[in-house]
Structure formats: structure tokens, C-alpha cells
């Protein structure tokens, strides 16, 4: 099934394809994420639309060759708009047997496997659970296979650079990248530039990696696969004009926080405690000190949120980020911020739970925690990002709501959004709508719970302001003086006011729009967060098949948009796809008494488009 011939094709016949899904997979030490990142960059520069899905184990260096140590990076790119990282890979690059074992099930029939025979040793095969070498029997008959000793070829390619055997073998990933570049007609130069910059102080490493890319590419030129060509081209997509870059959710979130601090004209204070997959926000912001950002790695999650509240009290935009278990620890302090009515942005990069769960796998199962998960009647605002790039706008919106309404805002992202990347038309930071904060400075008739009549927001008087010295705390306070109060009627009034303040935000957010489809019809698919891509693509496909379905995607989870109830009323059926067991679903049902149904997936993996399409079809064709 494998043939490598020395027939060099000068101009390979390339088959034009609309979109392609490639998955790189190997040991967590094989440099898979770097390979994927480079392919992404090059593909973006080639003008394709794209979406990526990095999927890696929680273990930093799991024992080599094991199935639980497999790291993968999937990219979906094409000449049309790309909404998801793709259901089934067309190409699987497997740098060892474990990578093949774990990922083979996802590969489409007839897909291409590139396997490193050098890593298919008896020992590795056994570790991966293969009884015999799948490259040497007919178990892969449904696929096309390029089996090549990547290790040996890489060592040969880099031998002139004088690297140690270990260092030389690290170039394996670049050899495969070169081969895949050839398969899809990608330009090698962006990767050469990146390698030269990255290994500036060790040019021999840069040169070796470049040699490996070139060798992989050259191998492609001379390669022959038994049942037909493997050279493809993917034309550029039609994309709105503008200046683009690729962006991950973490980058967009971090830059959005800076933009939010600029639009509110506050200094940004960010406190975090290391937790997967939220730590990268702390890493990103700690490198941006020139923006005046204070980053604080606290001793625990509680100290992180408390220091952010302290910073807000002193007049900064206090922000903290974590994932579900860390948010649970912060909960008491979030209640304090609700009680003393201070701005606070709490980012939850959700992951699979409960408890430690699966830290590197994605899930959307903290919506109830965000909306309801506190002692007492403790309302706050909840908003969710739908894509990596959307994190930017959502962060700005979180800063606006937190400061305008003097409230904690929970910003929901998830592990998939955080690590995935997509092309982004870079916004103009100077064009972001300003929502400047003005601190209270007038000592006349001042008390700390003076309220704005429209927003019900309390006066923000920061320490350092003469004449406004005051005391606040978590004890209930008098509506009319701000002093401690245990009066029954007052507690009722304060509870009602806190609720009314948050409910009132609904008047200050855009009406819910329909992403795709009509304002009414047979079925609405209502999503939130990172399910945006698969839902949108599924609705696209269903609509082109003639189904009367629409996609509604909710950014403002709490309070919900004012028109949502009437909007949902226009559809015969409401289906809510979520990566949980039905959390937005229960919120919608309890708020609106709509007979919505759930479509739920909790495997740690994003929805496949086909899963949604099939689920809708089976309901509509019932």
C-alpha cells in the first residue's frame, strides 16, 4: 500500500478542494502544538479561512508512547467560511502508534495517514495496545497510508548541523510539517522566518529545523501513493477586506481587558492563581506592564479574587480569572463584591468537571454556577464569548457593565475557546466606544450607597478622596445611610434593589438577534459560548437542504436580552445544544416556560457539525 518512487514530479497535478481538516498527533513532547501553530500561521497568510482545535493531555510529559500522553492539533481550513475545527480529519499525521490508536476512529473513510515507521517499534506498539503493527497488516485498508521513517529521514536531513542525536530528533515535527506543506501547497517562508527569529542565539538549531522542513517537502515531491494523487490546493477564501492576524481566545481576552480598562479609563489590576486552562491570561497580561497593568499571582484563588476586589475598592478595574473549581473557591468573595457593590470581572475558562474533572478538556457546565451558584439572593451579570476573537469584545463589555452597574460580571469562556485560534480582522482600538468612569467626589449629602436613579448603581467613592471617608462591608446596610442595618424592611428593600439593578441591565444591552435564518419558523437552535461554530455551520447545512431552522446565539446570559422571550415564541420548536446536561436549557425553561429541548454532549470534545445536523433532522422528520 505504500510506495515511494524516485520519480520527481516537477509540477504535481494538484486537486482543488474546498476545505480540508488535518490533525497532527504525537507524544506530548513531540512539538505537535508548535507544528499546528506554524501550519495555522502559514495557512492564514495563504488567505484561507480557518479554525483550530488544540487538544493536549493534562500531563506535561506523560510517559512517552502511551495513549494518554497523546497531544493533537486539528486545523480546518478552506476557501469558504470556516466555522469549526472540523468533524473528521482528512489527514492524520501520527508520529507514533499511540497517536494512531487514539485518533484513527475520527479519520474519515479514505483519509490519508502519515505515519512515522521509525516510532512504530515493538515497544511502542505494545504501549499503544496494538497486537501487531497496523502498518503491516490490512487493518488500515480503508485509508491511504504514507508510512515513512520520519526519524531516520530527519536525522539524515540535519546531519550537517552538528546537533546531538536528541536535538536532531526534535526536528521530526518540522520534517512532517514540510511534507504536509507540500501536500497542500503551502509557502515555507513564514516558518523559516519564525525559526530564524526563535533560535536567534542558536542558528544551528534554526538551520537544522529549516533543513528538516525542506527534506519533508522534498520527500513529498518524490512520493507516490498507490491509489492516486495526494497533492491538493485550497484557494483563498472570500474574506472581508482588512488587516488580519490569527488570535487565540486567551490573547483576545487579555487584549480585551486592556481595551476595557482604556474605555473605562481605569487602571487594570489582574490577579490569578495558576489553574488550567486559565493561567495563560496571567501569563499574557504579565508581559504587558507597559500598559500599567498590575498582575498579581496570589497564594490561592481566594486571595486572587479578594485582591481584585481590594483593587476595585481603591479605584482600579479588578479582574480575576480561573476555571470551575477555582471559581467555587472565589464564591464567598464574589458575594462580598455583590454586597458592597464594587465592580469586578471574574473570568471562568470552563473545563470538564466536576472537581478536577478533565482540566485540559472543554465543557460548558458552569453556567448554573455563574448564574445561581452563590449563597443567598446574590445576582450578578453573566456574559459568554462565542469564539476566540469574540473574547475581545466580551471582555470590553464585561468592563463596561461591571463599572457602570457597580457589580461583579462573570465572563464565561471555555478551554476550547481559550486555546483555539482563528483569523481576526484586527479592530481599531481607538474606535472602541468610551465608557469612562467618574468617581464620586462631592461630599454634599454623601453616603456610600447613594444610587443613580436610572442604573440603581451606587456611588463609587475611592479612598484618597477628601471628605468622603466611609465604611463598607458585607453586613447589610441601610438603603438611606449606608450604615449597618438589621431592619427587616430595609433588608427587603436592599435585596429588591440588588435584583432590580441587575435585571435593569437588560435595558442596556442589544436586543437578541438571529444569527442565521428567520425571526420565526419550525425550529430555533439556541446556543451560547463556543458551540457557535458547529451550530452555525449545522444551520447553514440544514437551511441549504431546505429546512426552516434558525440559529440564535446568546451573549448576555444574565440578565437575558429583553426580547428573547417573544423571539423564542416565534418558533415551533426550540433546541438548545450545549456541552453540559442542559443548563441554559433549564434557565430558558424556568424564565419563559418554553418547551425547549436539549441536545447535550459532555465528552470533553466540541460538538461535531454532523451531530447537530443529525439531531435536528431526526426531530424535524419525526
Amino acid at each position, binding site marked *: 500500500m505504500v510506495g515511494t518512487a524516485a520519480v520527481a514530479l516537477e509540477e504535481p497535478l494538484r486537486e482543488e478542494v474546498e476545505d480540508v481538516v488535518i490533525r497532527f498527533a504525537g507524544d506530548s513532547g513531540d512539538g505537535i502544538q508548535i507544528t499546528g501553530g506554524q501550519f495555522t500561521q502559514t495557512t492564514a497568510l495563504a488567505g484561507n479561512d480557518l479554525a483550530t482545535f488544540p487538544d493536549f493531555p493534562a500531563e506535561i510529559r506523560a510517559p512517552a508512547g502511551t495513549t494518554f500522553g497523546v497531544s493533537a492539533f486539528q486545523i480546518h481550513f478552506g476557501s469558504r467560511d470556516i466555522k469549526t475545527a472540523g468533524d473528521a480529519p482528512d489527514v492524520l499525521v501520527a508520529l507514533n502508534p499511540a497517536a494512531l490508536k487514539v485518533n484513527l476512529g475520527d479519520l474519515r473513510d479514505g483519509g490519508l495517514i502519515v505515519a512515522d515507521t521509525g516510532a512504530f517499534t515493538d515497544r511502542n506498539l505494545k504501549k499503544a495496545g496494538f497486537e501487531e503493527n497496523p502498518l503491516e497488516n490490512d487493518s488500515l485498508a480503508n485509508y491511504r497510508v504514507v508510512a515513512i521513517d520520519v526519524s531516520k529521514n530527519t536525522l539524515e536531513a540535519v546531519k550537517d548541523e552538528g546537533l546531538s542525536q536528541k536535538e536532531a530528533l526534535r526536528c521530526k515535527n518540522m520534517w512532517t510539517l514540510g511534507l504536509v506543506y507540500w501536500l497542500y501547497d503551502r509557502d515555507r517562508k513564514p516558518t523559516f522566518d519564525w525559526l530564524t527569529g526563535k533560535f536567534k542565539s542558536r542558528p544551528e538549531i534554526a538551520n537544522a529545523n529549516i533543513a528538516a522542513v525542506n527534506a519533508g517537502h522534498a520527500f513529498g515531491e518524490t512520493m507516490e501513493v498507490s491509489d492516486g494523487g495526494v497533492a491538493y490546493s485550497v484557494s483563498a477564501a472570500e474574506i472581508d477586506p482588512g488587516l*488580519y*492576524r490569527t488570535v487565540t481566545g486567551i490573547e483576545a481576552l487579555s487584549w480585551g481587558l486592556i481595551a476595557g480598562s482604556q474605555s473605562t479609563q481605569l487602571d487594570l489590576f489582574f490577579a490569578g492563581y495558576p489553574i488550567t486552562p486559565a493561567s495563560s491570561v496571567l501569563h499574557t497580561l504579565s508581559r504587558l506592564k507597559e500598559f500599567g497593568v498590575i498582575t498579581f499571582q496570589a*497564594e490561592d484563588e481566594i486571595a486572587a479574587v479578594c485582591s481584585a476586589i481590594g483593587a476595585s*475598592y481603591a479605584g482600579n478595574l479588578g479582574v480575576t480569572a480561573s476555571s470551575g473549581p477555582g471559581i467555587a473557591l472565589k464564591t464567598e468573595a464574589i458575594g462580598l463584591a455583590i454586597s458592597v457593590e464594587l465592580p469586578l470581572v471574574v473570568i471562568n475558562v470552563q473545563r470538564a468537571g466536576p472537581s478536577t474533572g478533565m482540566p485540559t478538556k472543554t465543557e460548558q457546565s458552569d453556567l448554573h454556577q455563574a448564574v445561581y451558584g452563590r449563597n443567598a439572593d446574590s445576582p450578578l451579570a453573566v456574559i459568554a464569548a462565542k469564539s476566540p476573537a469574540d473574547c475581545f469584545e466580551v471582555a470590553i463589555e464585561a468592563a463596561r457593565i461591571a463599572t457602570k452597574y457597580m457589580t461583579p460580571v462573570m465572563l464565561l469562556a471555555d478551554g476550547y475557546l481559550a486555546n483555539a485560534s482563528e483569523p481576526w480582522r*484586527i479592530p481599531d482600538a481607538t474606535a472602541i466606544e468610551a465608557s469612562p468612569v467618574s468617581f464620586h467626589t462631592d461630599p454634599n449629602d454623601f453616603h456610600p450607597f447613594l444610587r443613580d436613579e436610572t442604573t440603581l448603581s451606587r456611588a463609587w467613592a475611592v479612598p484618597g478622596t477628601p471628605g468622603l471617608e466611609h465604611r463598607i462591608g458585607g453586613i447589610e446596610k441601610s438603603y438611606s445611610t449606608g450604615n449597618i442595618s438589621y431592619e427587616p424592611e430595609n433588608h427587603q428593600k436592599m435585596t429588591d434593589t440588588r435584583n432590580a439593578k441587575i435585571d435593569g441591565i437588560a435595558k442596556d444591552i442589544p436586543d437578541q438577534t438571529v444569527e442565521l435564518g428567520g425571526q420565526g419558523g419550525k425550529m430555533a437552535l439556541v446556543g451560547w459560548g463556543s458551540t457557535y461554530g458547529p451550530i452555525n455551520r449545522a444551520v447553514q447545512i440544514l437551511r441549504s437542504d431546505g429546512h426552516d431552522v434558525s440559529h440564535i446565539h446568546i451573549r448576555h446570559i444574565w440578565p437575558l436580552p429583553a426580547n428573547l422571550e417573544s423571539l423564542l415564541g416565534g418558533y415551533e420548536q426550540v433546541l438548545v445544544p450545549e456541552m453540559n446536561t442542559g443548563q441554559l436549557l433549564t434557565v430558558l425553561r424556568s424564565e419563559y416556560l418554553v418547551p425547549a429541548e436539549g441536545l447535550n454532549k459532555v465528552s470533553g470534545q466540541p460538538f461535531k457539525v454532523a451531530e447537530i445536523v443529525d439531531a435536528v433532522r431526526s426531530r424535524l422528520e419525526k
Partner: protein
Amino acid sequence: MNVQTPPEKLTAKDYASDQEVRWCPGCGDYAIVRAMQKTLADLQSPPEKTVFVSGIGCAARFPYYMATYGFHTIHGRAASLATGVKLANPDLDVWVISGDGDALSIGGNHLMHVLRRNVNLQYILFNNEIYGLTKGQYSPTSRLGTRSPSTPLGSVDAPVNPASFALGCGAKFVARSIDSSQKHLPEVFARAHTHQGASFVEVFQNCIVYNDGVYASFTEKGAAEDNQLIVEHGKPLVFGKERDKGIRVKPGAMELEVVTIGKNGVTVGDVLVHDETNKLVATLLVEMERPAFPVAIGVLYCNPSETYDGAVRNQIEQAQSKGGKPDLNALMRSGPTWTVD
């Protein structure tokens, strides 16, 4: 606007808020709040730049009684809140008010880190060796055998020594005083205020309801002089009604002993001279326990080093001095970009 011109000189009364004090009559906290108001008047601290941050417990009500900025937060977390306040605005003078349960039980972790980081604030721990607000359970500083609602047969776990804990955490300023010592207490508070960095002050505070007289053996009239050692930098460690007792390093051993001056050939010259910059001396002094030793009071250790908030600001200023004005547009356009026409 009719901003009032502040009086030329603020008095202790000017630092008292209009709120009715709600501690039990006779509580040691009254004396501490009085001493604090006197301290701030002595220092002429601007009320608008002074912030009291507390956790939960009897002591934590303290900020309500001060006519400054105040934040009554949640149990154990005052140090973390205060760290955020100080990082956000280093011009503020931040005082943390805590009790033995708040600081050393639920908040022990935060106390450790605020001290080792050396955040420039004052941490005042009111130690009454009991949980007062929750009605009398034993606390992490209660002595072995303390009978309380939760330990009717006596507590069986060893207490923590707050000053020793603070030194172990790397605190650069550790002091002790007593609620009723209305002359000494403001002096210690003022020293804590002057010190740049995290200043830790343990105040022995009497809980009249649940633990009355727990410090009587060294605070009551008649007992104090023979059972307290008031330390002063550069002065010999002498105590006693007749000023005839001293502390010295036991010859041939790494420990302290009490000696009587004028007996067995001992002179004042043999007595250890207090060096507040010497951590080893401080470590030995805080471990002295009655009845074999007097209880050491005063500034036991003071050895300033760079503050955390100062270092954080320095890094930001250095980053800002390198480039021009920070530009978000430039940041977002750094790295590979491409133009679609």
C-alpha cells in the same frame, strides 16, 4: 461644593466615626481603638488616605469606629483585600485589623503571604485566645486544655505563637503590646506605621466575656513589672520592680536565661542588649514563656527590606520607561499579519 477646611491639627476625636461602638462593655477592643485614634492624631495621618481593612470577628468591627476609609470584608481574607488596595494605590496608608481566629485559623495562609511578600501595610492582630463573636470556642492561640463550648474536656491541640509564626513567615517587623498599655500601644503602632513593609503587631487583648484574665499574670497591676520585659533597641533587657532582673545568653548554650543583677557576680554588662535587627535574638525573645521567663513586649524585630508594592511599581515603571506610550493597536498588530483586499 462646600468642602470644609480641615482643622489645623487633628485630635484623637477627629478619627472617631459617629457610629455607636458595639463591643461588650469592658472589652479590650475599646482601649485599642482609643490607642489607634491617638496614634493617628500623633502622626497627623490624613483621614482620606487612611484605610482600615478587616475580616470577620469582634476585632473586625474596628473600621466602623474610625473616621477614615474602612472595609469590613470576609473571614480571614483582609490581608488579601488589603494587598489589592495597596497595589492599586500605594499612596494609601493601609491597616489590617484581625483577630486570632481570623488571622491564624481561616486566614493563616494569607497572613503568611502578606508577611513574606512584605506588602507595605500594618497588620494588627488582636489576640484574645478565643472566638468571641461565635460565643467562646477555643482558637488556634488557646492554650492546651482550654475548656470551651467545643472543647468541654479541654483543648488537646497545641497553640500557635503569633509572633513566632510571623518571624517564621519572614516578617521584617514584629512587635507586641497590650490593650491596656495606653502609652506603649500608640508608640508601637507609630513604629509599625513608620516601618516600610509589612509590620506585624500582636496585641494581647482581654475578652471580658469568654476569656477574662487570660493575660492577667503579666498584665495586672503588681504582676506586670516582674512578668513583662519591655524591649528597646540598644538597651539591656532588664525588667522587674527593682529593675534587677535581666535576660542573657546562657553561657555555653544557645538559649536565654533570667539572671539577677548583683547576684552571683552578674552585672548589667552581662545582660543581653536588645538588637531589633537581629532575627536570632527576636526568635529567642518571642519564644520566652511564663512562668520561667517574662513576656517580651515592644518592637522585637525591625529589619526593613524592599517592599512588594514598591517592587511591583518599579517593574511597571521600568517597562514604561523603555518604550514610548503603550499602544494597543500596535500590540494587536505585532507578529504575523496579512491584508485582505
